[in-house]
């Protein structure tokens, strides 16, 4: 924690960055995002097991990204998101200083996207154990059971779009669910409309999701929607041997064609 504060302070003091995005104390034992713009505020930075929000979201937020060059406190998921956003031409290396954190939460000395990439190659990218177990459980269901499971879970959805808003990879200015000429996705929060929305969201994140779990964390109704995108993570890894957010320069799995792509899904 001290090393993060020290580094953030140095970055701000030397004007290497104008802003450091990190974690700070919030209300009622919650953690909230801290936007450090003055050296003395760096002392308010914290890092503990409560610090799980994917801060890379703010790299795409209008008001934040126009503050200047940004330093960002980056546990694994944030580092992966930064690389994935870079691969989609959404962030530039020159505009970001990544305060990467190792598996033991220590501050790493990573000075380029290339070094971050090399570090990520040494990390365990597996899904969290609990979620992995649930996916195995759902995979074990019959088609009908699986449909019922998801219909039941998704029926709670109120379409507040917290999942989309919290996801750093959901950065479209106009989401497909909001296109209504023609309308692709039923806008209303009904069981069918909810199913359409969540399937569409999962498909748009296939090959791009860095399994940070922010969507499920943001859901006010505790719908385990991260399981949908996590499943795409497993499928993409299985079929294409690719994990999102592992390189700053990589082609999008689902929108690039390779001559040796498997075609065994065609019956």
């Amino acid at each position, binding site marked *: 924690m001290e090393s993060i504060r020290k580094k953030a302070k140095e970055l701000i003091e030397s004007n290497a960055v104008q802003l450091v995005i990190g974690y700070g104390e*919030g*209300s*009622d034992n*919650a*953690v*909230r*995002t801290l*936007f450090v713009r003055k050296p003395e505020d760096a002392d308010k930075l914290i890092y503990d097991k409560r610090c799980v*929000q994917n801060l890379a*979201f*703010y790299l795409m*937020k*209008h*008001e*934040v990204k126009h503050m200047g060059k940004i330093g960002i406190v980056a546990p694994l998921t944030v580092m992966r998101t930064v690389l994935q956003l870079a691969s989609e031409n959404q962030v530039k290396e020159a505009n970001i200083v990544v305060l990467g954190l190792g598996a033991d939460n220590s501050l790493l000395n990573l000075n380029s996207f290339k070094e971050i990439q090399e570090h990520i190659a040494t990390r365990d990218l597996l899904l969290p154990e609990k979620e992995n177990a649930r996916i195995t459980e759902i995979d074990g269901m019959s088609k009908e059971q699986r449909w019922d499971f998801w219909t039941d879970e998704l029926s*709670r959805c*109120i*379409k*507040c*779009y*917290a999942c*989309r*808003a*919290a996801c750093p990879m959901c950065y479209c*200015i*106009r989401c497909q669910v*909001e296109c*209504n000429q023609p*309308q692709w996705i*039923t*806008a*209303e*929060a*009904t069981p*069918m*409309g909810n199913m359409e929305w969540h399937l569409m969201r999962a498909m748009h994140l296939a090959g791009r999701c860095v399994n940070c779990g*922010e969507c499920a*964390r*943001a859901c*006010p*109704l*505790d719908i385990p929607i991260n399981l949908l995108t996590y499943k795409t993570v497993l499928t993409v890894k299985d079929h294409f041997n690719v994990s999102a957010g592992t390189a700053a320069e990589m082609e999008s799995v689902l929108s690039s064609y390779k001559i040796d792509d498997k075609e065994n899904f065609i019956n």
Partner: protein
Amino acid sequence: MSIEKKIVSQASFEKLVLQLKEEGKRIFAPVKKGTIIGFDEISSLQEMTNDYIVTKQSAKSVAFPKAEKLLSFQSTKEGVMMKDKDFNAIPEVVLIGARPCDAAGFNSLNAIFNWDTQDALYTTRFSRTTIIGISCSKSDAKCFCTSVNGNPGSTEGSDILLTLIDNGNYLAEIVTEKGTALASKYASLFEAAPEVDKEKYLANVPVAFDVDAVLKGIVSSFDNPLWVEQSLRCISCGACAFVCPTCACFDIQDITIGAEHSRKRSWDSCGFSLFTIHTSGHNPREVQSQRWRQRVMHKFAYMPDRQQIVGCVGCGRCSRACSVDMNLKEHLINLAEEIAK
């Protein structure tokens, strides 16, 4: 009218629910499903949970559902055949376990949906809803009803307000004509009440800020940098608006499934970037700080001005639903401090 006080025993309460159900009323009460407590239809009181401060979502969907058909139409050779909403199909509802803040929330919705043009659908649903509120015996740090003219035992908005007193008995305050009608229909379940010191059974919710000062000073705080600062971490989702008991904005879209077309309204939120976008592409509220300010202004400036009501009941749901710790109570305290400067 003066409020009549009765005692309802636990056994009578259970009987009341069964008899209302038999009568054909649909009964909604807080039910625990998984990790979430929400208003769900029940057929006996045993299904209801008492272990809640407030439900995750407000009770507003009883009169203002998250998705609702306004009309339907079909294209035929003869032309477009329209079918109006069948108002007769709107059920009689008894809402049990609404907290005083939930009940007060309906006063805001009533004011909005009857402001200029009466919203027939909302008004009909609400007119067929009887609210049996239950006072709060506990609260948490997100609650601030007492700062916005409410309190944990307020009868405002309830038709009957129950307060759990000793031995599982409830003090029943019969507040409105609807409440009187229900209590006299089931008179045998409402016993004569002794003197009860209701206050001692209520949660203690300290006043966090001076609402009159906020109402007076908020408009001149329009350009205060605090809106930008508070909303930096806001992610622009609609969770706060959708769990809010007083947020009433909706979107209307035509939906086609097969040969059936319907015009439906769904909840909308002023926090969404597309909420105010014009056809030209111009967006008068293009950044989140403007949208956050609008959310607070609507409740603390525009509603008091237009509808003579404070548009926030202090339930704290928005703060609990927020994944990035936007804490409305804290923000209003900050605003009050800014105004006092």
